[in-house]
């Protein structure tokens, strides 16, 4: 199915690059309370790295393990792993997590999905007419809370036209809905919505007024054309699209000695096409 699998470079893997770029951008969340869901090793590593560098005051709740502020140096492959509790500062109850969403007080959060459209809406329900789904999705889980998060970040392991579609078949996680100000017909004013989208080959952000997805940077080794040909909606293209800043030696050293000593991020199979 995939034409390219996690090429990375001999210096770093694509997952490591994603983590480092996510961590840099978490500076804007310092002091806020955030959450990650399932299949979240990449954002877990990013938050951990950000706390060691640009955002020491992040508070975060780690998925099904319910660990508060884990300090692992051997990145668990899943947020459900009880090893997240080793070196954590506490444990949250599921209701604590829900209540943050009910009151719309999440400062930041990460989630993925099986489909995303140009307004950052995410689908986990399925593909095709509901009475006759072509693909039954796993269910919406906590993507619902995308509506109540101040800065939400979306990430994907795979970049292709089946993931990035003109319009999602169903909305599980509401992004900017139909664009413009439509999100705030429902969302609380403080819930600003999708900030960045991280994929194996690029970073997207959203236009300040139309709230349509825009190409923010292209990862080293890929071109704007790679992004366009693997994205099923029309991205806003700035005149000059920068390259995502490659990881520095210092960033890689920190990541590999303080966050992911086992090299979990080198094993992930991210794909393009």
């Amino acid at each position, binding site marked *: 199915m995939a034409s390219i699998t996690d090429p990375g470079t001999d210096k770093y893997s694509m997952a490591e690059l994603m983590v480092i770029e996510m961590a840099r951008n978490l500076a804007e969340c310092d002091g806020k309370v955030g959450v990650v869901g*399932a*299949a979240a*090793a990449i954002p877990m590593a990013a938050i951990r790295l950000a706390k060691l560098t640009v955002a020491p005051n992040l508070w975060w709740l780690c998925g*099904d*393990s*319910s660990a508060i502020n884990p300090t692992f140096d051997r990145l668990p*492959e*899943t947020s*459900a*792993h*009880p*090893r997240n*509790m080793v070196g954590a500062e506490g*444990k*949250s*109850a*599921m*209701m604590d*997590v*829900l209540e943050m*969403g*009910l009151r*719309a007080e999440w400062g930041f959060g990460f989630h993925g999905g099986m489909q995303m459209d140009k307004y950052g809406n995410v689908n*986990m*329900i*399925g593909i095709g007419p*509901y*009475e006759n*789904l*072509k*693909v*039954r999705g*796993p*269910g*919406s*889980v*906590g*993507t*619902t*809370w995308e*509506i*109540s998060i101040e800065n939400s970040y979306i990430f994907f392991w795979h970049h292709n036209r089946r993931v990035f579609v003109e319009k999602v078949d*169903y*909305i*599980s*996680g*509401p992004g900017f*809905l139909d664009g413009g100000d439509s*999100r705030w*017909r*429902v*969302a*609380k004013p403080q*819930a600003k919505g999708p900030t960045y989208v991280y994929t194996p080959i690029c970073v997207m952000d959203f236009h300040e007024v139309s709230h349509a997805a825009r190409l923010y940077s292209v990862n080293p080794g890929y071109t704007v054309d790679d992004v366009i040909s693997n994205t099923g909606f029309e991205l806003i293209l700035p005149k000059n699209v920068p390259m995502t800043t490659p990881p520095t030696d210092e960033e890689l050293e920190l990541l590999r000695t303080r966050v992911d000593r086992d090299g979990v991020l080198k094993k992930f199979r991210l794909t393009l096409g």
Partner: protein
Amino acid sequence: MKGNIQGASRPLSPKTPSPERKRKVISLSEAGEMIAKCRSIHVAGDQLFDAPMALIRAAMRAGAKGLTLIPTVATGIAFDLLIAAGRVDTLYLSYVGFEGLGLAPAFRKAGEKKTIHIVEGDEPFVVLGTRAAASGLPFIAVPRHVYGATDIPKLNPYIHRIKDPYTGEEVYTIPPLRADVCIIHVQQADEYGNAQCWGGNRQEPDKAKASDLVIVSTEELVSVDETKKAPDKTTLPGYMVDAVVHVPFGAHPTGSSHCYTYDEAHLRMYQDLVGKSKEEEYLSKFVFGPKDHYEYLEQIGVERLFNLRKVL
């Protein structure tokens, strides 16, 4: 007026009626029979840890069928196995999958072929529905922002939009989710049902309260004296529990928090077999073939089981 006849109550004596406290320990096959008499089950544990798998296999061997399943926020093989064996009628959905390992094969097939009834839910629907049942509330209302922009209320006939009688604003309601039985796997429990979930995230007491019957399986069965050494570590007090079953490795192939990790190779083998419609092969080898839990563990192998304990 001073009473001059003898009181109706009986004077206290340590011998009457009996100082013996009732123990709640039963066998796994007895638990299976109890679950098989039920139609709806609250299942604790998540997609990779603390799923009550031995109880589920015992219930399947005892003939459990036509089930309605209520999960935690995320579930995996616990539900998928029951679906693969054709034992599920209705499923309340938040997430069924194997996380990084991929989709749940039987769930996906059943969802696409419509062989089970799926109630399209999510985290707030399942958690707050359980909460409502636990608290004996008629329903829980959530603010409009929670559901106003998703498609979930359009697909889920149990979520209603009503007017908040206090503010006049639109709110959405979630109904109580009650079950006949709740099954929970824990790491330690005593003979009176006082249990410690070393993982979990407090959904377990809500699930217990939302069910008529509560069965706990435990890695370690200890004396109540052990519980009394650290009573603050009891996460599920015995008064909420009806029966306790001693089942070492009772969460396998999922992990058991701080005891052993999940058996990734086994989960992948399951996904592979069911994905190729060879569920009968898996079921006969691991569910209906072994006469009890210990034969199941022998199938898995001692070395492999103990290796799962190394990683924590």
